């Protein structure tokens, strides 16, 4: 006769033992994941979260009283308002008020974190064009000099010098290094915000050829970025291409009714911006 009780007990023991490795793997994976998430979060851990107020109630209530959105008003020149000098309130200029400034370091950190998502391969990928949603405002101006495309492949020379010396050097990053970093990142993800940043930086540094080229690239990726067209036109003026700058701005204004572009056009035509 078979001893069924004994057999059942043995079967149970066998079953429990067979689950042990699965349980161990499961627990260790959870442990590893929690450790990784702990290391990833550099910010101080928040032990207590305020539950004193109901966020949703406040937010919902607030959403009912939605404020108007900041309007980049598309008021054309016909809507110009005359401000008479006598209407202005005379304010006595005085006192030094304490100014509170925001801290935007967290954005820099977020930008650095973004950088780690990309591969370090410096190969240049061709700029992908976004599907344009409307009529392109301007004919495509060609880059001023083909040489400028070299910027994608530029080797950071200072880094090479540092490698040669083999000694540890702590150097303060300058604007050129910052731009090179951004250029590398832009080559990997073709984000128009980055190319616009590069164009602005080159413009600030007085390298108008490069600022022109990067503004042009930005416009090719996304032709609705106002700042990019402004930098583009400003660079053209600086490169003694005033007529072209005026033409580009006029077409852009026709397309977007941009006030900033209108202001710049006024300044260029009146000779205030040189």
């Amino acid at each position, binding site marked *: 006769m078979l001893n069924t009780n004994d057999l059942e007990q043995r079967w149970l023991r066998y079953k429990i033992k067979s689950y042990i490795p699965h349980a161990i793997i499961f627990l260790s994976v959870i442990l590893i994941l929690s450790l990784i*998430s702990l290391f990833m979060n550099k910010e101080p851990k928040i032990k207590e979260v305020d539950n004193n107020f109901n966020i949703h109630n406040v*937010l919902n209530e*607030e959403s009912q009283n939605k*404020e108007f959105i900041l*309007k980049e*008003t598309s*008021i054309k020149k016909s809507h110009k308002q005359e401000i008479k000098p006598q209407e202005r309130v005379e304010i006595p200029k005085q006192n030094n008020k*304490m100014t509170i400034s925001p801290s935007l370091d*967290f954005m820099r950190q*977020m930008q650095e974190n973004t950088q780690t998502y990309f591969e370090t391969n410096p190969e240049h990928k061709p700029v992908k064009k976004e599907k344009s949603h409307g009529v392109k405002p301007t004919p495509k101006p060609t880059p001023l000099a083909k040489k400028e495309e070299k910027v994608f492949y530029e080797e950071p020379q200072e880094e090479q010098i540092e490698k040669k010396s083999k000694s540890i050097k702590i150097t303060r990053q300058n604007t050129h290094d910052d731009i090179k970093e951004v250029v590398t990142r832009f080559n990997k993800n073709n984000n128009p915000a980055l190319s616009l940043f590069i164009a602005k930086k080159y413009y600030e540094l007085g390298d108008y050829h490069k600022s022109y080229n990067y503004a042009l690239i930005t416009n090719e990726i996304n032709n609705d970025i106002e700042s990019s067209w402004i930098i583009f036109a400003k660079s053209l003026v600086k490169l003694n291409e005033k007529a072209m700058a005026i033409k580009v701005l006029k077409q852009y204004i026709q397309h977007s009714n941009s006030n900033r572009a209108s202001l710049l056009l006024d300044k260029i035509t009146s000779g205030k911006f040189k």
Partner: protein
Amino acid sequence: MKIIILLFLALQLSADIKQEMFNLYQNEQYKNVCSMGFKYFSKNKKDEEFISLYAFACLKADHIDRLTIPIAMLKYSKESRANAAYFSVILMQKKLLYHSLVDGYDLSTLDLPTTDYVLSKVFDLYSKIGKHNKRAFYLFEDEVDNKLTYKLYLEKNNKLSKMVIEEFYDTITIKHHVYW
């Protein structure tokens, strides 16, 4: 195993939302960032970077009342506390200016800190006028750039008056903010 995958996907999703918000912020789409932050707030209420990003986007989109929650939540790092102070000054100035415009509350005796935000600039200029009779509108010249002018007035409705600040550059309206 399915639980682990789901857990991993959830973590990945929350990181993606923050990243997407940041990309939108860089592209100056502040209204979208503010709406996204509002939508995903409860899932990210422990993330101070997320809260700060949400708050700055709402500030740039003129949704100042939405700063109330970030002001209360930002407190665990030096940077967050600085930003919370910055937002609270703006919120307070908005409320005081509105109170003064609607009810004639005197602001001249107050000596508050200021910020670089347009509302703070107008608040400072307005509070310097001192006691005065109500006017239809106020025109202030920027202290730094004399081409920049601010027009402050109340837009009266049946139920609620709204405070409007218009920014002019050489007589052309460049920005239009409405608060209440």
